[in-house]
C-alpha cells in the first residue's frame, strides 16, 4: 500500500516539475559567449546509481581539463548535472527541465536505455542533440537524427564475447538467465541468444527475473540441475552481483564461466560478489590497459582525483565530453543546437580514450571492443 502512496507522490512531483519546466520558471541566464551549457542526465540514485557515479566523475574530469585549457578564446563548458533516478518518468522530467528551463545546447545521458527510450524522444522533438554514453539497447539512435551514442551496442560487443569465450573454454551448452522487464537486459538477451545460435552453442534453458528481484535461487537451482558449461546472464550490475554470488553459493562453482553483457562491466561486480566473481567474462567497449597515451593519462588523472580506478562508464562519459567539444569547435557556435548536431555527424577518427572514434551513419559508436575476464579479483583483458 505504501507503494501506491509513493507513486502518487512521485507523479505529483513529476507534474509539478513539468509545469515548472514548460513555463520556464527558474530558467537561468543564457551562457556567455564561448561557454557551452551541456546538460547531464545521469542516474545518481536507484538501480543504476553504480554507473551514474563514475559517469559523473568521468565527465567532471573532462570538463575540468577542457576548461583549464580553454584560455581566453577557447570553448568552456558549463555543466548542468541532473539525477534521472534510474527511472523513465524522472528522466522525462529531467530532460524537460534541461531543455526548456536550463536551455542547454545538448544533453549527455541518460544512464539507462530504458530511460533513453522515453526521454530521448523529447529531445528529438525539441531539436536538442543527445549523446548517450551507456545506452546499448537496440533502437535508441533510431529515435531520430538528433540522437547519438558513444557506447557500443550489444550487437557490436556480444557476438565477439561469445566467440572469444568459446575459443577459450570450448563451451558447448549454456543456460540463459535474463531480466525480462527492462529494455537493456531484454535486448542483451536477444543478442546473446542470436550469437549463441550463430555459434551453434546449445541453450539448455532460458530463465528470467524481474527488476528488483533479490532471490534467484529458484532459477539457479533449475539451471544447476542441467549442468551447463557456462551461464549466460543479461542483467544490470546490482542484480548481476546477486546472481553471481547466489550461483556460486548454490554450487555452480567458479569452474563454470559466467558470461555477462555490458551491465557486468563495472568494478562494483567484483566488489559486491567477491571471490564468486572469478571466471566471469564480459564484453567491454573500453580497454583499461590500452597503451594509448590519452588513455594512460586519463587513468592516472582519474585515479588521482577520485581515489579509485575508472571503469568503462567513466571512460565513455569522459570521451563524450571530448567528442562534444570537438563538434562544438566545428559548429562555430556554443548555443546553436542544429549546427552542433550537424557537426556531431562529422566526428571522424577522433582520438579518444575509447580509441579512434567515429559515429556511424546511424549515429552509433564506431570503435573497437575488447573481452575481459575476472581473474584474481581484477578484470583482465583477453587477447585472442
Amino acid at each position, binding site marked *: *500500500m*505504501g*507503494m501506491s*502512496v*509513493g507513486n502518487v*507522490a512521485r507523479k505529483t512531483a513529476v507534474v509539478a516539475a513539468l509545469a515548472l519546466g514548460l513555463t520556464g520558471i527558474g530558467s537561468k541566464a543564457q551562457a556567455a559567449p564561448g561557454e557551452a551549457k551541456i546538460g547531464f542526465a545521469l542516474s545518481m*540514485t*536507484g*538501480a543504476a*546509481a*553504480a554507473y551514474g557515479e563514475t559517469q559523473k566523475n568521468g565527465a567532471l574530469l573532462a570538463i575540468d581539463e577542457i576548461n583549464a585549457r580553454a584560455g581566453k578564446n577557447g570553448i568552456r563548458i558549463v555543466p548542468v548535472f541532473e539525477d534521472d*533516478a534510474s527511472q523513465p518518468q524522472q528522466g522525462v522530467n529531467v530532460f524537460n527541465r534541461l531543455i526548456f528551463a536550463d536551455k542547454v545546447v545538448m544533453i549527455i545521458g541518460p544512464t539507462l536505455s530504458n530511460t533513453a527510450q522515453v526521454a530521448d524522444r523529447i529531445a528529438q522533438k525539441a531539436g536538442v542533440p543527445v549523446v548517450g554514453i551507456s545506452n546499448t539497447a537496440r533502437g535508441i539512435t533510431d529515435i531520430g537524427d538528433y540522437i547519438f551514442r558513444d557506447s557500443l551496442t550489444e550487437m557490436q560487443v556480444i557476438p565477439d564475447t561469445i566467440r572469444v569465450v568459446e575459443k577459450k573454454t570450448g563451451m558447448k551448452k549454456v543456460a540463459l538467465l535474463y531480466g*525480462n*522487464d527492462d529494455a537493456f537486459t531484454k535486448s542483451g538477451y536477444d543478442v546473446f541468444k542470436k550469437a549463441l545460435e550463430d555459434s551453434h552453442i546449445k541453450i539448455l*534453458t*532460458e*530463465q*528470467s*527475473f*524481474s527488476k*528488483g*528481484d*533479490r*532471490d534467484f*535461487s*529458484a*532459477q539457479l*537451482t*533449475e539451471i544447476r*540441475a542441467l549442468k551447463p558449461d557456462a551461464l549466460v546472464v543479461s542483467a544490470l550490475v*546490482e542484480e548481476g*552481483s*546477486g546472481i553471481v*554470488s547466489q550461483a556460486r*553459493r*548454490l*554450487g555452480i562453482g567458479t569452474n563454470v564461466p559466467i558470461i555477462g553483457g555490458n551491465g557486468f562491466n563495472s568494478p562494483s561486480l567484483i*566488489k*559486491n*560478489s*567477491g*571471490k564468486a566473481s572469478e571466471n566471469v567474462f564480459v564484453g567491454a567497449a573500453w580497454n583499461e590497459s590500452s597503451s594509448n597515451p590519452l588513455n594512460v593519462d586519463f587513468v592516472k588523472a582519474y585515479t588521482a582525483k577520485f581515489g579509485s580506478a575508472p571503469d568503462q562508464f567513466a571512460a565513455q562519459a569522459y570521451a563524450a565530453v571530448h567528442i562534444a567539444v570537438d563538434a562544438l569547435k566545428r559548429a562555430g557556435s556554443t548555443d546553436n543546437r542544429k549546427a552542433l548536431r550537424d557537426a556531431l555527424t562529422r566526428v571522424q577518427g577522433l582520438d579518444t580514450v575509447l580509441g579512434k572514434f567515429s559515429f556511424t551513419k546511424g549515429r552509433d559508436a564506431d570503435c573497437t571492443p575488447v573481452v575481459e575476464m575476472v581473474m584474481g579479483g581484477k578484470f583482465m583483458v583477453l587477447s585472442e
Partner: protein
Amino acid sequence: MSVFIQQLINGFFIGSVYGLFAIGYTLVFGVLDILNLAHAAIFTLGGLSALWLTRTTGLPVWASFCLATLFSGLLGLVLYRVAFAPLRRRADSNLSGLISSIAMAIIFEAGAFEIFGARTVRFPQGMFAVRVYHFDSLTFTSLQLEIVAIALGLMVVLSLCLKHSRTGKAMRAVAESETTARLLGIPVERIISETFFVSSALGGAAGILFGLYFNALGPDMGRSIELKGLAVIILGGMGSIPGAILGGIAFGMSEVLTVALTGMSSLRDAVAFSVLLLILILKPSGLLGRGRIRQA
C-alpha cells in the same frame, strides 16, 4: 526429484523470513485490531541499522543483530507513541491509525533514504564465514541454517511467552477485551506499548535476516515484502501466530515453485496471490483462523 527438494528448501528459507515478518503484523492486529502499515519500514530500518553497526563500529554480526533488533523495538515504541496512541480515544481509531501508520512509514523510509542513500548497500565480503554443505545433490549454507534457526527460534520463544508469561497473558487479555482487561487491573497502555516493541523487534530481525541472506539492502527493500506480509497473515488466519508461520512458509514455497515451473519470475506474485484468493474462497478465515476468536 532432487531439484524439486532443493526448490522446497529454497522456498522454506525465504518463507521462514516471511513468517517472522508477518508475525509482527499479526501480533499488533491480534491485540489492537489495527493494521500497522509501518511494519515494512521497520523491517527496512532494522536491516540497514544492522549493516551500519557492522560497518562503522566493526561489531561482530551477531552483536549488531541483537542491537539492531533492540533498536527496531524502540522504533516500534516511537511508532506507537506518535502514530497510534494519540488516536486511541477517537471513534474511528482503527482507520485513522492505519493512515497515520502509512505516514510514519513514509517518514521512516525518507529517513533511511537520507542516511543511507538510494544505492543498494551490502555487508562487506568475508564479514562472516559461510560454509556450504552438500548432501547428495542438495546444497545449503551455514548462513541459511542460522537464518532458519533464528527465525523459528524467535517464533517459538514468542509463542511460549504469549502462553505462559505474565506479559503474554496480559497481551492475550487485552486482545480479548480491552475493557475487561482494564477492569482486571491490567495496565493496558503499557501492554500495548510492549506489544509494539515485540512486534517491531521481530520485524527488524526479519529485515536483518533478509539483508544477510540476499546481501542487498536499500531503503526500498520493505516494498517487496510489505504486501506479502499482509497476504501471509490473511493466508494463515488474521491474528494467528502459527498461522503466520505456516502462511509464510507456504507463501515462500509457492513463489519459488512458480519460478521453478515457469522459468519466469514475473508470474511469481500473480500465482502467490491467486493461491491467496483461492484459499479465501474455500476457507475465508484462513488456514488456521478460527473465525472471530482472536488468539494472539
